[in-house]
Protein backbone atom coordinates (compact mmCIF):
# COMPACT_ATOMS: atom_id res chain seq x y z
CA UNK A 1 0.00 0.00 0.00
CA UNK A 2 1.64 3.30 -1.05
CA UNK A 3 2.13 6.13 1.43
CA UNK A 4 -0.68 8.64 1.40
CA UNK A 5 -3.37 6.02 1.01
CA UNK A 6 -5.60 5.43 4.01
CA UNK A 7 -5.33 2.02 5.59
CA UNK A 8 -8.66 2.50 7.35
CA UNK A 9 -11.70 2.18 5.10
CA UNK A 10 -15.27 2.79 6.25
CA UNK A 11 -17.31 -0.14 5.00
CA UNK A 12 -20.72 0.41 6.52
CA UNK A 13 -22.45 2.78 8.90
CA UNK A 14 -25.93 2.30 10.24
CA UNK A 15 -28.09 4.42 12.54
CA UNK A 16 -31.26 2.67 13.56
CA UNK A 17 -34.37 4.64 12.69
CA UNK A 18 -36.45 2.40 14.90
CA UNK A 19 -35.83 -0.39 17.38
CA UNK A 20 -34.87 -3.73 15.90
CA UNK A 21 -33.67 -7.04 17.28
CA UNK A 22 -30.71 -7.82 15.01
CA UNK A 23 -28.17 -5.95 12.95
CA UNK A 24 -26.09 -7.80 10.38
CA UNK A 25 -23.05 -6.82 8.36
CA UNK A 26 -23.07 -9.28 5.48
CA UNK A 27 -20.97 -9.92 2.37
CA UNK A 28 -17.93 -8.46 4.09
CA UNK A 29 -15.11 -8.21 1.59
CA UNK A 30 -11.96 -10.20 2.32
CA UNK A 31 -9.82 -7.42 0.89
CA UNK A 32 -8.65 -6.20 4.32
CA UNK A 33 -6.59 -7.74 7.12
CA UNK A 34 -8.50 -6.65 10.22
CA UNK A 35 -11.97 -5.35 10.90
CA UNK A 36 -12.85 -2.68 13.40
CA UNK A 37 -16.43 -2.38 14.65
CA UNK A 38 -17.72 0.55 16.68
CA UNK A 39 -21.12 0.26 18.37
CA UNK A 40 -22.88 2.91 20.36
CA UNK A 41 -26.04 1.06 21.23
CA UNK A 42 -28.67 0.54 23.86
CA UNK A 43 -31.41 -1.99 24.41
CA UNK A 44 -35.06 -1.39 25.12
CA UNK A 45 -35.09 -3.85 28.02
CA UNK A 46 -32.73 -6.19 29.82
CA UNK A 47 -31.39 -9.04 27.77
CA UNK A 48 -28.34 -11.05 26.83
CA UNK A 49 -26.95 -9.26 23.80
CA UNK A 50 -24.66 -11.39 21.68
CA UNK A 51 -22.82 -11.46 18.40
CA UNK A 52 -21.88 -14.18 15.98
CA UNK A 53 -19.45 -14.70 13.15
CA UNK A 54 -20.75 -16.15 9.85
CA UNK A 55 -24.05 -17.02 11.55
CA UNK A 56 -22.21 -19.77 13.43
CA UNK A 57 -24.61 -20.92 16.13
CA UNK A 58 -22.88 -24.19 16.99
CA UNK A 59 -19.18 -23.53 17.67
CA UNK A 60 -17.77 -22.93 21.12
CA UNK A 61 -16.65 -19.33 21.32
CA UNK A 62 -13.88 -18.87 23.91
CA UNK A 63 -13.55 -15.64 25.79
CA UNK A 64 -11.71 -14.12 28.70
CA UNK A 65 -12.62 -10.85 30.35
CA UNK A 66 -11.11 -8.25 32.60
CA UNK A 67 -13.70 -5.91 34.03
CA UNK A 68 -14.80 -3.57 36.75
CA UNK A 69 -18.38 -2.88 37.77
CA UNK A 70 -17.88 0.10 40.05
CA UNK A 71 -16.97 -1.87 43.16
CA UNK A 72 -15.27 -5.10 42.11
CA UNK A 73 -12.57 -5.91 39.56
CA UNK A 74 -12.71 -9.41 38.13
CA UNK A 75 -11.38 -11.75 35.45
CA UNK A 76 -13.45 -14.51 33.94
CA UNK A 77 -12.81 -17.33 31.49
CA UNK A 78 -15.66 -18.92 29.58
CA UNK A 79 -15.14 -21.89 27.31
CA UNK A 80 -18.72 -23.01 27.17
CA UNK A 81 -20.23 -20.31 25.08
CA UNK A 82 -21.96 -22.26 22.40
CA UNK A 83 -23.40 -20.49 19.44
CA UNK A 84 -22.30 -16.95 19.99
CA UNK A 85 -20.82 -14.38 22.30
CA UNK A 86 -23.60 -13.67 24.73
CA UNK A 87 -23.32 -11.65 27.92
CA UNK A 88 -20.00 -10.34 26.78
CA UNK A 89 -20.61 -6.62 26.57
CA UNK A 90 -20.57 -6.33 30.35
CA UNK A 91 -24.28 -5.89 31.00
CA UNK A 92 -26.26 -3.71 28.71
CA UNK A 93 -27.76 -0.58 30.18
CA UNK A 94 -31.34 -0.73 31.19
CA UNK A 95 -33.83 1.30 29.27
CA UNK A 96 -33.33 5.02 29.73
CA UNK A 97 -29.59 4.84 30.37
CA UNK A 98 -26.94 6.06 27.94
CA UNK A 99 -25.92 3.60 25.26
CA UNK A 100 -23.03 1.20 25.67
CA UNK A 101 -19.88 1.85 23.68
CA UNK A 102 -18.24 -1.21 22.15
CA UNK A 103 -15.15 -1.44 19.97
CA UNK A 104 -14.12 -4.71 18.40
CA UNK A 105 -10.80 -5.36 16.68
CA UNK A 106 -11.28 -8.52 14.65
CA UNK A 107 -7.72 -9.52 13.86
CA UNK A 108 -6.80 -11.44 10.69
CA UNK A 109 -10.49 -11.95 9.91
CA UNK A 110 -9.74 -12.79 6.29
CA UNK A 111 -6.77 -15.10 6.96
CA UNK A 112 -7.48 -18.83 6.86
CA UNK A 113 -4.39 -20.12 8.70
CA UNK A 114 -5.62 -19.38 12.22
CA UNK A 115 -8.57 -19.05 14.54
CA UNK A 116 -9.69 -15.46 14.83
CA UNK A 117 -8.62 -13.41 17.87
CA UNK A 118 -10.93 -10.51 18.66
CA UNK A 119 -10.10 -7.72 21.10
CA UNK A 120 -13.20 -6.12 22.61
CA UNK A 121 -13.60 -3.03 24.77
CA UNK A 122 -16.88 -2.03 26.33
CA UNK A 123 -17.98 0.91 28.42
CA UNK A 124 -21.46 0.95 29.93
CA UNK A 125 -22.30 4.02 31.97
CA UNK A 126 -24.35 2.26 34.59
CA UNK A 127 -22.67 -1.15 34.57
CA UNK A 128 -18.92 -0.81 34.23
CA UNK A 129 -16.00 -1.21 31.87
CA UNK A 130 -14.79 -4.38 30.25
CA UNK A 131 -11.88 -5.65 28.18
CA UNK A 132 -12.16 -9.02 26.53
CA UNK A 133 -10.27 -11.38 24.25
CA UNK A 134 -12.41 -13.71 22.17
CA UNK A 135 -11.50 -16.59 19.91
CA UNK A 136 -13.85 -17.88 17.29
CA UNK A 137 -12.51 -21.41 16.69
CA UNK A 138 -12.62 -21.41 12.91
CA UNK A 139 -10.09 -20.81 10.18
CA UNK A 140 -12.82 -19.65 7.82
CA UNK A 141 -12.68 -16.04 6.67
CA UNK A 142 -15.33 -13.95 8.38
CA UNK A 143 -17.89 -12.56 5.95
CA UNK A 144 -20.83 -11.89 8.26
CA UNK A 145 -21.14 -10.29 11.69
CA UNK A 146 -24.47 -10.37 13.48
CA UNK A 147 -25.37 -8.40 16.59
CA UNK A 148 -28.50 -9.50 18.42
CA UNK A 149 -30.19 -7.88 21.38
CA UNK A 150 -31.29 -11.20 22.86
CA UNK A 151 -34.80 -11.02 24.21
CA UNK A 152 -34.89 -7.31 23.52
CA UNK A 153 -34.29 -4.82 20.72
CA UNK A 154 -31.60 -2.29 19.94
CA UNK A 155 -32.88 1.19 20.63
CA UNK A 156 -33.64 3.66 17.89
CA UNK A 157 -30.59 5.85 17.36
CA UNK A 158 -28.11 3.05 18.07
CA UNK A 159 -25.18 3.17 15.66
CA UNK A 160 -23.16 0.34 14.15
CA UNK A 161 -20.04 1.15 12.11
CA UNK A 162 -17.69 -1.24 10.33
CA UNK A 163 -14.18 -0.44 9.07
CA UNK A 164 -11.61 -2.44 7.13
CA UNK A 165 -7.94 -2.16 8.10
CA UNK A 166 -5.46 -2.89 5.34
CA UNK A 167 -2.06 -4.49 5.91
Amino acid at each position, binding site marked *: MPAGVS*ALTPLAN*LTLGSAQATVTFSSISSAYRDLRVVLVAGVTSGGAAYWRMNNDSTSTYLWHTLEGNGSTAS*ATYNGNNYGGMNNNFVAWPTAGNPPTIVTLDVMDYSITDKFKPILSRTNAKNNGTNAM*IVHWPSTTAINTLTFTAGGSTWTAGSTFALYGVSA
Partner: protein
Amino acid sequence: MSLLPLGIIGQVSAATSAGAYELITTLTPNAVSSFSFTSIPSTYTHLQLRATVRGNYSSTNMGFTVTFNGDTAANYSYHNLRGANSAISSGATASASNYSGLSHPANMAAANYFSGFVWDILDYANTNKFKTSKIFNGFVTASNNNQITYDSSSWRSTAAINQITFNVVVGSVVTGTRFSLYGIKGA
Protein backbone atom coordinates in the same frame (compact mmCIF):
# COMPACT_ATOMS: atom_id res chain seq x y z
CA MET B 1 -33.26 -7.58 10.82
CA SER B 2 -31.10 -5.27 8.82
CA LEU B 3 -28.87 -6.71 6.14
CA LEU B 4 -26.13 -4.42 4.96
CA PRO B 5 -24.43 -5.36 1.71
CA LEU B 6 -21.12 -3.58 1.94
CA GLY B 7 -20.41 -1.00 -0.68
CA ILE B 8 -24.03 0.07 -0.78
CA ILE B 9 -24.17 1.72 2.59
CA GLY B 10 -20.46 2.36 3.01
CA GLN B 11 -19.66 6.02 3.43
CA VAL B 12 -16.36 7.84 3.58
CA SER B 13 -16.11 10.27 6.46
CA ALA B 14 -13.75 13.18 6.87
CA ALA B 15 -12.24 11.59 9.99
CA THR B 16 -10.85 8.76 7.91
CA SER B 17 -9.91 10.62 4.78
CA ALA B 18 -7.10 9.27 2.67
CA GLY B 19 -3.75 9.38 4.38
CA ALA B 20 -4.87 10.01 7.98
CA TYR B 21 -4.13 6.42 9.01
CA GLU B 22 -1.45 4.84 6.86
CA LEU B 23 0.23 1.47 6.75
CA ILE B 24 3.99 1.88 7.16
CA THR B 25 4.91 -1.77 6.77
CA THR B 26 3.89 -5.32 7.63
CA LEU B 27 6.28 -7.97 8.92
CA THR B 28 5.51 -11.68 8.79
CA PRO B 29 8.41 -13.13 10.80
CA ASN B 30 8.75 -16.90 10.82
CA ALA B 31 11.26 -19.08 12.70
CA VAL B 32 13.21 -16.07 13.92
CA SER B 33 13.87 -14.94 17.47
CA SER B 34 14.42 -11.26 16.70
CA PHE B 35 12.99 -8.81 14.20
CA SER B 36 12.69 -5.05 13.88
CA PHE B 37 10.84 -2.21 12.32
CA THR B 38 13.61 0.07 11.10
CA SER B 39 13.82 3.51 9.50
CA ILE B 40 10.40 4.48 10.84
CA PRO B 41 9.60 7.87 9.30
CA SER B 42 8.95 10.77 11.67
CA THR B 43 6.16 12.20 9.52
CA TYR B 44 3.27 11.00 11.68
CA THR B 45 1.97 12.03 15.09
CA HIS B 46 1.31 8.59 16.57
CA LEU B 47 2.09 4.97 15.76
CA GLN B 48 -0.19 1.97 16.05
CA LEU B 49 1.04 -1.61 15.95
CA ARG B 50 -1.45 -4.40 15.26
CA ALA B 51 -0.34 -8.02 15.54
CA THR B 52 -1.25 -11.67 15.83
CA VAL B 53 1.45 -13.87 17.38
CA ARG B 54 2.33 -17.47 18.21
CA GLY B 55 5.67 -18.99 19.23
CA ASN B 56 7.36 -22.38 19.21
CA TYR B 57 8.58 -22.35 22.81
CA SER B 58 7.81 -25.70 24.46
CA SER B 59 5.27 -24.22 26.80
CA THR B 60 1.72 -22.94 26.60
CA ASN B 61 2.76 -19.32 26.19
CA MET B 62 5.72 -17.14 25.29
CA GLY B 63 6.85 -13.52 25.51
CA PHE B 64 8.96 -10.76 24.02
CA THR B 65 11.26 -8.06 25.18
CA VAL B 66 10.96 -4.85 23.19
CA THR B 67 13.37 -1.95 22.76
CA PHE B 68 13.18 1.38 20.98
CA ASN B 69 16.08 2.64 18.87
CA GLY B 70 18.25 -0.17 20.19
CA ASP B 71 18.35 1.38 23.65
CA THR B 72 19.14 -1.28 26.29
CA ALA B 73 19.82 1.13 29.15
CA ALA B 74 17.48 1.24 32.16
CA ASN B 75 15.05 3.66 30.52
CA TYR B 76 11.84 1.62 30.40
CA SER B 77 9.01 1.50 32.92
CA TYR B 78 5.65 -0.20 32.62
CA HIS B 79 2.54 -0.95 34.57
CA ASN B 80 -0.12 -3.53 33.90
CA LEU B 81 -3.58 -4.78 34.74
CA ARG B 82 -3.85 -8.48 34.01
CA GLY B 83 -6.40 -11.26 34.11
CA ALA B 84 -5.68 -14.99 33.93
CA ASN B 85 -8.62 -17.32 34.49
CA SER B 86 -10.29 -15.88 37.58
CA ALA B 87 -7.12 -14.21 38.86
CA ILE B 88 -6.73 -10.50 38.47
CA SER B 89 -3.51 -8.66 39.25
CA SER B 90 -1.61 -5.46 38.73
CA GLY B 91 2.14 -5.01 38.55
CA ALA B 92 4.79 -2.46 37.76
CA THR B 93 8.40 -2.47 36.66
CA ALA B 94 10.66 0.55 36.85
CA SER B 95 14.01 1.27 35.22
CA ALA B 96 14.13 -1.86 33.10
CA SER B 97 16.41 -2.35 30.10
CA ASN B 98 13.45 -3.18 27.85
CA TYR B 99 9.70 -3.44 27.81
CA SER B 100 8.44 -6.90 28.66
CA GLY B 101 4.77 -7.54 29.10
CA LEU B 102 3.30 -9.23 26.08
CA SER B 103 2.16 -12.84 26.19
CA HIS B 104 1.18 -15.16 23.36
CA PRO B 105 0.28 -18.81 22.72
CA ALA B 106 3.23 -21.18 22.25
CA ASN B 107 3.91 -24.72 21.13
CA MET B 108 1.90 -26.53 23.81
CA ALA B 109 -1.21 -24.43 23.27
CA ALA B 110 -3.97 -25.88 21.12
CA ALA B 111 -3.34 -25.52 17.39
CA ASN B 112 -4.42 -22.48 15.37
CA TYR B 113 -4.63 -20.11 18.34
CA PHE B 114 -2.77 -16.80 18.07
CA SER B 115 -2.79 -13.77 20.33
CA GLY B 116 -4.08 -10.40 19.29
CA PHE B 117 -2.64 -7.11 20.36
CA VAL B 118 -2.90 -3.44 19.55
CA TRP B 119 -0.17 -1.07 20.73
CA ASP B 120 -0.56 2.71 20.53
CA ILE B 121 2.70 4.67 20.78
CA LEU B 122 1.87 8.31 21.29
CA ASP B 123 3.88 11.30 20.08
CA TYR B 124 6.65 8.93 19.01
CA ALA B 125 8.39 11.61 16.95
CA ASN B 126 8.04 14.45 19.46
CA THR B 127 11.50 15.34 20.78
CA ASN B 128 10.18 17.43 23.67
CA LYS B 129 8.87 14.57 25.80
CA PHE B 130 9.44 11.02 26.93
CA LYS B 131 7.40 8.43 25.04
CA THR B 132 4.29 6.80 26.44
CA SER B 133 2.21 3.99 25.07
CA LYS B 134 -0.72 1.74 25.85
CA ILE B 135 -1.12 -1.88 24.95
CA PHE B 136 -4.11 -4.22 24.79
CA ASN B 137 -2.99 -7.84 24.47
CA GLY B 138 -4.67 -11.18 24.98
CA PHE B 139 -5.31 -14.76 24.04
CA VAL B 140 -7.57 -17.54 25.20
CA THR B 141 -6.93 -21.15 24.26
CA ALA B 142 -8.22 -23.23 27.19
CA SER B 143 -9.43 -22.94 30.74
CA ASN B 144 -5.89 -22.92 32.11
CA ASN B 145 -4.21 -20.91 29.38
CA ASN B 146 -5.63 -17.47 28.85
CA GLN B 147 -4.42 -13.99 29.56
CA ILE B 148 -5.67 -10.50 28.97
CA THR B 149 -3.50 -7.50 29.70
CA TYR B 150 -3.75 -3.75 29.65
CA ASP B 151 -0.33 -2.13 29.89
CA SER B 152 0.96 1.39 29.99
CA SER B 153 4.63 1.94 29.37
CA SER B 154 7.16 4.70 29.07
CA TRP B 155 10.52 5.06 27.41
CA ARG B 156 12.47 7.83 29.06
CA SER B 157 13.99 9.37 25.98
CA THR B 158 13.19 12.48 24.00
CA ALA B 159 14.57 10.93 20.82
CA ALA B 160 12.14 10.24 18.01
CA ILE B 161 11.45 6.53 17.73
CA ASN B 162 12.86 5.21 14.47
CA GLN B 163 13.27 1.55 15.36
CA ILE B 164 11.26 -1.03 17.32
CA THR B 165 12.94 -4.37 18.02
CA PHE B 166 11.22 -7.52 19.29
CA ASN B 167 13.29 -10.27 20.88
CA VAL B 168 11.59 -13.57 21.71
CA VAL B 169 12.48 -14.56 25.27
CA VAL B 170 12.71 -18.28 24.46
CA GLY B 171 12.31 -19.88 21.04
CA SER B 172 11.01 -18.10 17.97
CA VAL B 173 7.79 -17.02 16.34
CA VAL B 174 6.00 -19.31 13.91
CA THR B 175 4.36 -18.85 10.55
CA GLY B 176 1.12 -16.95 10.75
CA THR B 177 2.65 -14.34 13.02
CA ARG B 178 2.02 -10.85 11.69
CA PHE B 179 3.00 -7.34 12.77
CA SER B 180 1.61 -4.29 10.97
CA LEU B 181 2.84 -0.80 11.82
CA TYR B 182 0.64 2.22 11.05
CA GLY B 183 1.22 5.94 11.20
CA ILE B 184 -1.52 8.27 12.39
CA LYS B 185 -1.36 11.85 11.23
CA GLY B 186 -2.24 14.89 13.28
CA ALA B 187 -4.36 17.78 12.14
